[in-house]
């Protein structure tokens, strides 16, 4: 080992410890307290220096002794100030016996102001010592004998009130009492705590002895740990020795400003979509059934419109009006298809139902509103919309989640351009080269497709669903060109990428988890 380089990197605290030991006859071991005293260090300074020197193998631990130390807990301090349950029970019981009153366990609780568990423990102990008797009817009487436990407790509480004591300084009997009344796992409500104090003694290692010898002969150079403005201003840094650091140590942890990993993922998707020419749409959290479902040609008897699938709003329960001509046109299309070339669903449309307010259950509601608001043609739109489903919350169902969805309008839209668009999503959003298209069913599209992709790291997964909007959807909203409706199911991809298995963790309240989760998308 290069002793000079080593010496340069020593911290002043380390030097103090080394030289203190170096001044003693070789192979002398000093305990922590002696060492701190001789080196004129605070206990905390010494402990830092010792840890560093041990890490550098300049000192070694010569002995290590473990001493049990007893101290009072918060409860112990309380007992010292006032009284312990066993003393209180004895007091109440003695008074009852002297006045001849009947005293039951519940009486003890109410008169003593004690917890049932404290009372039963105290009575059990007193009974064992023969201090109390339980007579007929569950009544308690004192025998007049003194309680060794109560007396020992009082003495011990007083002994330890000022400062902790070594366990071995107590008599065998008292040690037993301490044992019985010490905090244990599962029973924190006790007056005593026994901690183990570890006492170590240290001596120089051969390298440490060499370094100490050199330090003692050459003396310690004047060292500065921090480069300061003053040193720079007057140029005195030239005459100053700046201590070298041990740079291999872990740095202290700092808090940082950072995006939420799931939002970060959604941001990358958003950026991708904008770069592919999509315009963002926004919508309201509260929506009418009309825009959430009717306009999407979901019949009013559709099972997914049940009270067990959608959240209804309490007040107001209905909107004042749905925009015309959309309401009457959509109503007719549901009833008989109107001029869309469809037969319709053949039932009588309930306008009041259409006005009912719900929590948006699907992002497609935002697309429906866009269709009705003279969209650009050709046009591409997307939204990342918060949606709500009436689901029992569990590892795979959230009541409140994001849907990424949108539309593409244009004269050149057909089944093959739909597949082309999905291919683009697969490549851009999931970096997937392999894609599978499966037939699917959505009430508002025909043909409908489900897309499965192979993510380069995450494997095969369902990426989304899409289709061509039915004429029953587009024509009543005033759109005459074909329209692709698409939705991406990104939660699973996000969960795999973030290494989580429970959908609730996307919105976790665990700050440590949020701070440490890294998304690799």
């Amino acid at each position: 080992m290069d002793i000079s380089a080593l010496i340069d990197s020593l911290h002043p605290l380390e030097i103090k410890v080394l030289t203190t030991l170096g001044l003693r006859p070789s192979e002398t071991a000093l305990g922590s307290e002696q060492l701190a005293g001789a080196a004129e260090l605070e206990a905390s300074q010494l402990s830092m220096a010792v840890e560093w020197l041990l890490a550098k193998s300049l000192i070694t631990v010569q002995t290590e002794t473990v001493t049990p130390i007893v101290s009072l807990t918060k409860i112990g301090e309380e007992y010292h100030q006032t009284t312990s349950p066993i003393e209180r029970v004895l007091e109440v019981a003695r008074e009852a016996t002297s006045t001849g009153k009947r005293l039951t366990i519940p009486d003890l609780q109410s008169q003593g102001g004690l917890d049932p568990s404290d009372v039963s423990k105290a009575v059990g102990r007193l009974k064992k010592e023969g201090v109390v008797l339980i007579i007929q009817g569950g009544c308690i009487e004192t025998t007049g004998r003194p309680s060794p436990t109560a007396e020992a407790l009082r003495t011990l509480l007083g002994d330890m009130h000022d400062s902790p004591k070594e366990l071995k300084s107590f008599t065998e009997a008292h040690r037993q009492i301490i044992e019985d009344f010490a905090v244990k796992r599962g029973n924190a409500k006790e007056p005593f705590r026994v901690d183990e104090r570890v006492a170590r003694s240290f001596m120089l290692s051969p390298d440490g002895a060499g370094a100490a010898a050199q330090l003692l002969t050459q003396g310690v150079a004047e060292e500065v740990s921090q480069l300061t403005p003053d040193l720079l201003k007057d140029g005195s840094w030239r005459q100053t020795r700046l201590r070298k650091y041990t740079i291999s140590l872990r740095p202290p942890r700092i808090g940082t400003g950072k995006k939420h990993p799931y939002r970060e993922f959604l941001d990358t998707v958003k950026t991708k979509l904008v770069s592919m020419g999509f315009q963002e749409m926004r919508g309201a959290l509260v929506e009418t059934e009309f825009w959430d479902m009717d306009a999407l040609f979901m019949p009013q008897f559709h099972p997914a419109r049940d009270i067990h699938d959608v959240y209804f709003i309490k007040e107001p329960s209905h909107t004042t009006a749905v925009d015309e001509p959309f309401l009457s046109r959509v109503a007719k299309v549901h009833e008989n298809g109107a001029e869309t070339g469809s037969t319709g669903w053949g039932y009588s449309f309930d306008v009041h139902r259409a006005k009912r307010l719900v929590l948006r259950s699907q992002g497609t509601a935002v697309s429906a509103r866009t269709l009705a608001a003279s969209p650009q043609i050709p046009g591409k739109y997307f939204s990342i919309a918060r949606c709500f489903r009436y689901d029992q919350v569990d590892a795979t169902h959230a009541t409140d989640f994001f849907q990424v969805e949108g539309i593409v309008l244009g004269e050149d839209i057909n089944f093959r351009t739909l597949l082309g668009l999905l291919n683009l999503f697969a490549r851009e959003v999931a970096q997937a080269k392999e894609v599978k298209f499966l037939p699917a069913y959505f009430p508002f599209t025909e043909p409908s497709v489900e897309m499965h992709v192979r993510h380069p790291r995450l494997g095969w997964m369902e990426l989304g669903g899409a289709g061509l909007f039915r004429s029953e959807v587009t024509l009543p909203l005033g759109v005459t060109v074909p329209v692709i409706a698409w939705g991406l199911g990104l939660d699973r991809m996000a969960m795999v990428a973030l290494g989580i298995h429970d959908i609730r963790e996307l919105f976790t309240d665990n700050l440590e988890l949020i701070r440490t989760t890294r998304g690799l998308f």
Partner: protein
Amino acid sequence: MPTITIFKDDLESLLTGGDGIDRGIPMAQLEEWLMLVKGELKGHNPETGELRIELQDSNRPDLWCCEGIARQIRIKQQGRLKPYAFFAKTPKSPHHLIVKPGMEQVRPYVAACTAKGYRVTEKGLAQLIQTQEKLADIFGRKRKTVSIGIYQLRNITFPVTYELVKPDEVRFTPLGMETAMTLSEILMVHPKGLEYGPILAVQSLLPILRDAKAQPLSFPPIINSREIGEVRVGDDELFVEVTGTDLRMVILSLNIFAANLADRGATIEPVEVRYPTSTVLGTRVTTPQDFGKPVTIQMKAIEQALGQELGEAMVKQALEAYGYDVSAEKGSVKAKLPPYRHDLMHTMDVVEDVAMSRGYAEFTPVMPAQFTVGGLSAIEQLSDRSRELMVGLGFQEIISNILGSPDQYCRAMRLEGTEWGRTVEVNNVMSLSFSCLRQWMLPSLLRIEAASSRAFYPHRLFEAGDVAIPDGTHELGSRTETMIGALIAHATTHFSEIHSCLDVLCYYLGKDYSLEPVQHPSFLEGRAGRILVSGKPVGVIGEVHPEVLERWQISMPVVAFDLNLSQLIGLG
């Protein structure tokens, strides 16, 4: 939409028509075939051969059974559907089912047939029951519009009558009971009576099916008679009836059952139903019946939608291989659905069948070529800029549910009964924890703070997101607005620390703001301010009230602000 359970060997024997059973179709092959029926394999037990399959298409009840899945695959393999004889010819002297007057008020329609020559096996019976349940439950809207009964034929004497009786006029032993009960007793006591009784709006007269000897067959749509209406393994002569409120749905359901039983080897004999007054299909309606009509579809419509020239012959071939009856004409095809389907609402429904029959893989994807400009909404841009600035200020972003509880959003914030304590509430509450929408951001931030006292300090948190603010003047009863909230928590934090952050945020957003003192119950009095931009209130800032912290069980001082970004747009 329904998920059904079938057995692989049952499917395999149906695929090959019962003989020359090809066992051991590879699962990969099976999964590919399932694309033809929009089916997704949800589970497979290799030991029992049990398959769980989800059928996506809610308009194709014919596919919600083993027979229907096998049929669709078989047609594809054989190139066309082998026609069912019983749809084509009417029997000379069929059995009769007589509908008595008054049924139109209650449950007007009925369809029925007999099936002989198929001995019911254990797996076959399980399939019969499953199909009956799925059809009545999902297609029949929980028996409201369609319900189905299956009986042992040998105990029935024709003609059968469908009529109304007084609630205590007729007694029979229903399935699942030991003793005879009147119809009103069934409604009051039998589990099915309790479950489905409310379907019958008028309960002074109730529907019943009885045979010529006045033996009750069933009390539709509630329950069958135990004597006649319990089919067992080994039975080989069955009577099937469907009752309901829509004639076509009723007949379609029977058509599906008839085709299923025929596929299992039964000979189907139609029944003539005689109505007292005319229906859309006349007074005498023989069922099962193929009531579908062919539609003419322009080739142009098909080719435009699919983006590919196919030609009449190819379209004809594709549709036939999917079960249609097709004749090609110049520039168009005339196509008719098979009798067990009635889901053709629009030309596009046929187009999809062409694509599925050919297989989606047959279509080469083409990129949409038209140019469009992408972009973010103004509010998203403002939200993104604010988020960037908050990150620069050293804040950790968080993300929360919007649906929460009044306890979280109001009570714990000391806002009950104040102007700040109004929220959009849910009517059909499932759990109180998810019963109203957040009206501001601070509770979302405190939620994290309350759970994270062990995470090292300081805590600097922010969230940008949507809230719903009740507003009687808005057509939806509330406004959805985007807000940003920020919080600092550590032992020595104070008002000016969060104020500095707001100051920097507003400076870089180019918003000139001022603060005026406000008495807000969530904040300490004298240490809270309303944020004003151009004189308009756009948020609050302050030291969070210790009582609020206590209610959240937070034992660290917290300072915070809430800023409404939606209202900030267009202001100073």
